[in-house]
């Protein structure tokens, strides 16, 4: 909890690197794990962490960045809520001579030199991976394979990108067909509700469910069970994130695959901050280690899951 962070900050020595970190919020387990990883990695005495939570609002994040600049921190790191709209404030940071490290998501800026580096995942690639798993898994099957899609929050970057990546691969194969697509707002409750409606409208003609995150998939699994079908068998399910709940579902045979989107990038971030502060050359894009997990790996992997 928050109190520990405070104590560490107080203990930080004079020469510590002051890092201002602006997090998106605490909207999901994934995010909480991400926050925890960053906090733990930057709790070392060599850092002095200023943490700020934006409550999912870009305005708040920009306010936080301005405050960091006003406080004169050494390095700014943040997970952008959205891709656009960062030019002005990043320019201010640059003018103040504060290097910026992006985590988790990319930003769209006119001038690439406005940030030092990005460590994080690629949502489009995650969508592609989910689709590739599906294509492999459907080898030898005859079409049409009817897919329903549970989208994330309308307009959000992960939703847009995961949809794009998924379609890109699926569209190349004529057997696949997305019959219904609706937003489940990244939540279990919505995921369940929307899946119920899908099942009601399509009856038993759904072959595959693609959910933009695990939570919606978990909600949808309940809906499928309540409708008297077997998730994972009657309807194959692939989702993204790789949270603990997804592994449990895979272990129970209810979820077929999850594409990992690894939130534990704290240690990588800490190293980058060190390098950037020391003026060392860093790569512009650092990927987090991620994989695709299926039911056979679930049992072995479950104990390793921290979130």
């Amino acid at each position, binding site marked *: 909890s928050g109190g520990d962070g405070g104590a560490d900050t107080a203990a930080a020595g004079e020469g510590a690197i002051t890092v201002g970190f602006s997090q998106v919020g605490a909207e999901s*387990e994934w995010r909480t794990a991400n926050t925890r990883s960053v906090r733990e990695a930057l709790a070392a005495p060599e850092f002095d962490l200023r943490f700020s939570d934006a409550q999912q609002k870009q305005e708040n994040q920009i306010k936080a960045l301005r405050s960091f600049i006003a406080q004169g921190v050494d390095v700014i790191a943040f997970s952008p809520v959205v891709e656009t709209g960062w030019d002005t404030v990043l320019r201010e940071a640059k003018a103040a001579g504060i290097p910026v490290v992006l985590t988790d998501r990319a930003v769209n800026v006119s001038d690439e030199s406005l940030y030092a580096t990005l460590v994080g995942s690629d949502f489009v690639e995650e969508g592609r991976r989910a689709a590739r798993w599906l294509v492999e898994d459907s080898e030898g099957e005859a079409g049409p394979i009817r897919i329903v899609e549970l989208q994330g929050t*309308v307009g959000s970057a992960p939703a847009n990108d995961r949809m794009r990546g998924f379609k890109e691969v699926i569209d190349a194969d004529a057997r696949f067909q997305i019959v219904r697509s609706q*937003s489940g707002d990244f939540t279990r409750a919505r995921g369940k*509700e929307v899946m119920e*409606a*899908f099942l*009601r409208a399509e009856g038993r003609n759904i072959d595959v469910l693609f959910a933009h995150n695990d*939570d919606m998939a978990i909600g949808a699994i*309940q809906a499928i069970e309540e409708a008297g079908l077997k998730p994972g068998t009657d309807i194959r399910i692939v989702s993204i994130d790789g949270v603990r709940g997804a592994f449990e579902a895979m272990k129970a045979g209810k979820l077929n695959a999850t594409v990992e989107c690894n939130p534990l990038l704290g240690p990588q971030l800490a190293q980058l901050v060190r390098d950037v502060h020391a003026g060392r050359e860093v790569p512009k894009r650092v990927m987090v280690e991620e994989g695709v997990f299926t039911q056979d790996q679930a049992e072995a992997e479950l104990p390793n899951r921290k979130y």
Partner: protein
Amino acid sequence: MTGEPPPSLARRAFAHPLLWPLLALALLLLGNGLFNPGFLSLEWRDGRLYGNLVDIANRAAPLILVSLGMTLVIAVRGLDISVGAVLAIAATVAAWTITRMTTGGGGLAPLFAAIGAALAAAALCGLWNGLLVVKVGMQPIIATLILMVAGRGVAQLISDGQILTIYYEPYRFLGTGFLLGLPFSLFVVVAVFATLKLLLDRTALGLFVRAIGYNPVAAHVAGVRARAITLSLYVFSGFCAGLAGLLVSANVASADANNAGQLLELDAILAVAIGGTALAGGRFSLAGSLVGALIIQTLTTTIYAIGVPPQVNLVVKALLVLAVLLLQSPQFRGQVRALVRRPQRGTA
């Protein structure tokens, strides 16, 4: 709530404030039925009733509960925008209690403990709101805004930011169980609604609530304990949100402190307003709010059922809400009538 004098039955039905919300609901369902013939069908399978109508009622249950509490708060010139956060707190407290207790063993003890703890926490939240409004004299929207902002934080504090998953079957029954072939949540709604109706119609509470809403000063002068009643209505609103929290968390077998009940306050107020309750206080209708909540859920289900692309959802919802509102406005109906009659008058 008001008992009109009894002229002709037809006239009374026509003037009944529930007529237009009900008509709107009927039109929505009918439209759905036309678009998709299977929509209105009900099916008896494995001793249960299945169908979109059951789904709608079941899904709407939490919203109905919250709207009932909101109706009474609004009736006394208040507002409670913390219901979503209170729902999240109740859900989290319930899940937390269960995770604590089920490690010790099974039985029904965890179920009752969870229900009790969640409802107590929710009622306490309501009491807090009520005290800020009644004792401190804050404006209701700000008083409840405080809990709206902080409440989710408290819920996340309890859950440590995790989605608490509930592996305990008896609890799931609240959200997914069936009784006599109908979803259990419907019984909760009916029980709360009937109790309220009895309480408000058979005792003097309904009269007092309306008196306070129309003219708090006059009610006070007449000896009505306006402040105590207002306070207890906030408690009740919290309690309703707590009940809704139980249903929601039991339905998905987990408590999501951040997302449970997100934007619920808006939907609830919308339901209350569609149901014909005056947001300025005084006139209120519990049945109207119930119908209003059903209308909102039907809208949502309609959007899913007809396969509206997600980016058009909001526009469709907006247009449907506007249509419902206009249908209810006597001025608008008058205008339409005048338009229809004009050609006739020309011939006459």
